[in-house]
């Protein structure tokens, strides 16, 4: 066993930068309005950085932070569960809790810093993580924080009792056991090293509940706002209206939070979020409508930014039958349908971020400059279309005899804009005839699970940006969410290597190769990830919103108001 210093801890964290986003951040059907042909320029893939200005996870924003005031936010704050591990809204509830480790709010989420963990030892083989916990931390109800809470929290995630739905379980499949040698220490035993393990723990979903709360509520917190150790305490919740939190005077970091209160207004429509900030009815929003974003961007008292997000639009392909079972046909579609055209077609709704299989915001992503030259991703399609036609000919569809395919789409902007654009390019560029069937969004999921589709325009997002967890769910042969029945033994073998590799450069090369494999033999068509468009009044400081490498709708204890 080797001891990891704070600097080493930060280096490990820096290498594995990238974090989960809320499920709520995945693209939805709520549409903004208005038309604009101007879209933000792509954000280059960030290089991991180290933070040298922290002391044991004590995040300190730049400037001269002041205590006091109420921050008013504007975004949707309804949720069907208060249990973060059962789908509860982390964008609201995470204010009340701490993780073991977390993304650094003051350097744009570029590093992972200690939270309830004070320090970390990692064994030489990378399979044992020993966390020393902070002392003197209490929950909002006065209960002391101990290792038993960590144990109870993660055991419930990994081995949920009957009746508990654990969406996070799939992210911890490599954790064999968690032990607590004493009240201040927790040890995670992994079946194999995982480069992204800290990212999973640092996700906004990785909060620690008290063992007491879990036991008192039969391990089901869906209808309980359980006390946390976090910087803010719960005050009031008016359903579909607002949440109110107040400063936790007993927070373990005595400097934080700076705010007295945090008022989260329920503003579901993107345009209303934007007008709320523009008219000073709210101080900030994580994502606003593009036309209001432009208005804010032009104002001196307001700042607007664009951040890569881990929700994406896809054209799913059923690999199990018909022409789409042939990888040459899937590859031809990937080459023949222009992502740039789809981005333009959907520009009135959401700003599409063209990426490969690893999105920007993840350290392994392909840079926009490289992407601009790559087949399938470049703007000039002439060469790609020729290649695609040759592939179709090789697959036996060179004489225009391609059977008609069905494109399934949810009603709304996806059916009105994306599906027709795909249909047009398939027809004009490749001679593939299609018909569009529009169904309720709620029905898409079951059609997908049952495999009763050929092509489907739909959304899908992920929590952790690393390719391993979702690669195993979505693209590994027999993966639990591999609804398109994709099977690629070469990819499977490479994915196993990626899973176990921890050295950054080696892993980068492996992931590049995996993306090449997915380009050559694609399981589906990635239309693109989306950008989130945060906007805030200039008096809002301390969240590094202008410097983040990806969108995270999470904690705010470092925010302060410059008034």
């Amino acid at each position, binding site marked *: 066993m080797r001891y990891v210093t704070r600097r080493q801890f930060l280096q490990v964290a820096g290498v594995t930068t990238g974090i989960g986003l809320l499920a709520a951040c995945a693209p939805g059907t709520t549409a903004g309005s208005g038309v604009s042909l101007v879209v933000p320029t792509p954000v280059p893939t960030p290089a991991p950085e180290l933070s040298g200005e922290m002391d044991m996870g004590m995040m300190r924003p730049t400037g001269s932070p002041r205590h006091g005031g109420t921050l008013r936010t504007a975004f949707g704050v309804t949720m069907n569960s208060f249990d973060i591990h059962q789908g509860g809204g982390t964008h609201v509830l995470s204010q009340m809790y701490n993780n073991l480790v977390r993304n650094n709010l003051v350097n744009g989420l570029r590093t992972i810093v200690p939270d309830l963990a004070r320090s970390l030892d990692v064994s030489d083989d990378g399979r044992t993580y020993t966390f020393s916990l902070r002392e003197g931390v209490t929950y909002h109800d006065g209960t002391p924080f101990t290792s038993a809470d960590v144990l109870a929290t993660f055991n419930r995630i990994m081995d949920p009792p009957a009746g508990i739905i654990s969406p996070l379980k799939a992210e911890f499949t490599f954790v064999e056991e968690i032990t607590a040698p004493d009240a201040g220490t927790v040890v995670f035993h992994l079946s194999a090293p995982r480069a992204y393990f800290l990212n999973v723990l640092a996700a906004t979903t990785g909060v620690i509940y008290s063992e007491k709360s879990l036991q008192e509520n039969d391990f089901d917190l869906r209808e309980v706002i359980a006390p946390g150790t976090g910087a803010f305490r719960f005050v009031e919740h008016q359903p579909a209206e*607002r949440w109110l939190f107040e400063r936790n005077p007993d927070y373990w970091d005595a400097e934080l939070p700076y705010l007295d209160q945090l008022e989260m207004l329920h503003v579901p429509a993107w345009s209303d979020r934007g007008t709320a900030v523009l008219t000073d009815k709210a101080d900030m929003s994580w994502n606003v409508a593009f036309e209001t974003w432009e208005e804010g961007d032009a104002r001196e008292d307001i700042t607007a930014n664009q951040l890569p997000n881990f929700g994406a639009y896809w054209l799913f392909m059923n690999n199990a039958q018909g022409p789409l079972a042939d990888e040459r046909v899937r590859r031809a579609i990937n080459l023949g349908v222009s992502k740039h055209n789809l981005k333009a077609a959907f520009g009135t709704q959401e700003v599409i971020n063209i990426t490969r299989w690893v999105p920007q915001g993840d350290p392994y992503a392909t840079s926009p400059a490289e992407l601009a030259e790559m087949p399938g991703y470049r703007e000039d399609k002439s060469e790609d279309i020729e290649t695609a036609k040759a592939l179709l000919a090789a697959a036996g569809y060179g004489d225009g005899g391609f059977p008609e395919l069905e494109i399934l789409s949810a009603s709304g902007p996806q059916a009105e804009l994306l599906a027709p654009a795909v249909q047009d390019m398939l027809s004009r560029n490749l001679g593939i005839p299609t018909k569009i069937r529009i169904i309720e969004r709620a029905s898409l*999921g079951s059609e997908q699970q049952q495999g009763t589709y050929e092509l489907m325009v739909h959304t899908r997002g992920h*929590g952790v940006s690393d390719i391993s967890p979702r690669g195993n769910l979505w693209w590994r042969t027999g993966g639990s969410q591999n609804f398109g029945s994709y099977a690629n033994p070469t990819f499977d073998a490479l994915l196993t290597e990626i899973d176990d590799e921890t050295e950054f450069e080696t892993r980068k090369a492996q992931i590049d190769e995996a993306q090449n494999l997915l380009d050559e033999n694609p399981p589906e068509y990635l239309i693109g990830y989306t950008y989130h468009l945060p906007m805030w009044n200039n008096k809002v400081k301390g969240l590094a919103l202008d410097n983040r490498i990806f969108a995270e709708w999470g904690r705010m204890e470092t925010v302060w108001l410059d008034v």
Partner: protein
Amino acid sequence: MRQYIINRLLIAIPTLVGVTILIFLAMRVIPGDPLQTIYSESTGVYILSEEELAEVRASLGLDRPLYRQYLDWMAQVLRGEMGYSFWTKDPISHMILRRGPISAQIALFAIALSWLIGIPIGLIAAYWRNSLLDQMSRLGITVFLAVPSFWLGLLIILFTVLTLRWRPPLTIIQFWEDPGANFSLIALPSMTLGLGLGAATARMARSAALEALYDDYVRTARAKGLGDMLVIWRHVFKNAMLPVITTTGLALGGLLGGTVSVEKAFAVPGLGSLMVQGMQERDWMMIQNLVLVYGFIYVFVNLIVDISYGILDPRIRYG
């Protein structure tokens, strides 16, 4: 009159029961599983297994036979509970009681505004028939009748946001908590609705007043030497009000039942916004109960309108 009211209330019962059955069944034949939607929206990548889906369905009582679900809902309604939202698990009655006053205020202010604008314009236009004033008022009436209220609302909100840098508050502020802030919440939606409704009222008032102005009793009143203002106030106005009240009654039912598009345009947290949210989240219980409330309001308002006829026109008697 009492017997008439009792009869109307008795007739209302099967009407409301029919509404509940229709909406209950409609919610269940719409394709797509709301539970799958709710969980996939909140957990993102996670997709419920059949077993988990069955468990959640059972926890919400949706595994019971349809007739049991319906009867349980009706029992809850009779107890004044209305059940719980699928999405937030909050009592629906609480949400309706909290938001209802805002929607009611918007509706009543809109009606008041429509009368304040519509009746004088209608009477003036009728009195100076075919004058420039009449022509202008008719043009205005046509414009405001043609413009959809949600579009007018969007124009107004755009104007206030871009030029005044102001928009209505986003949270519920009840009148008894802060009358000024409450007024700022309801003013623009009321104005938007009131302008359209005012145009309809003005048109109705004008035509009714025109009819009354040439009736024998008006000529007789003038022959008796009564002044124009007195004739209009005593004889024309009262008679012109009957069709106005009918129009207003029907409109009030619609407004109280849900100013959906206008509430949405201004992001006002009223019953209309709640309905839109219920539909987006496929919250069956929310939609069912709101439709029931709307049905009740329609029946009640229609009854009030019928009763008011008898008060305004002594010739009308209900047996």
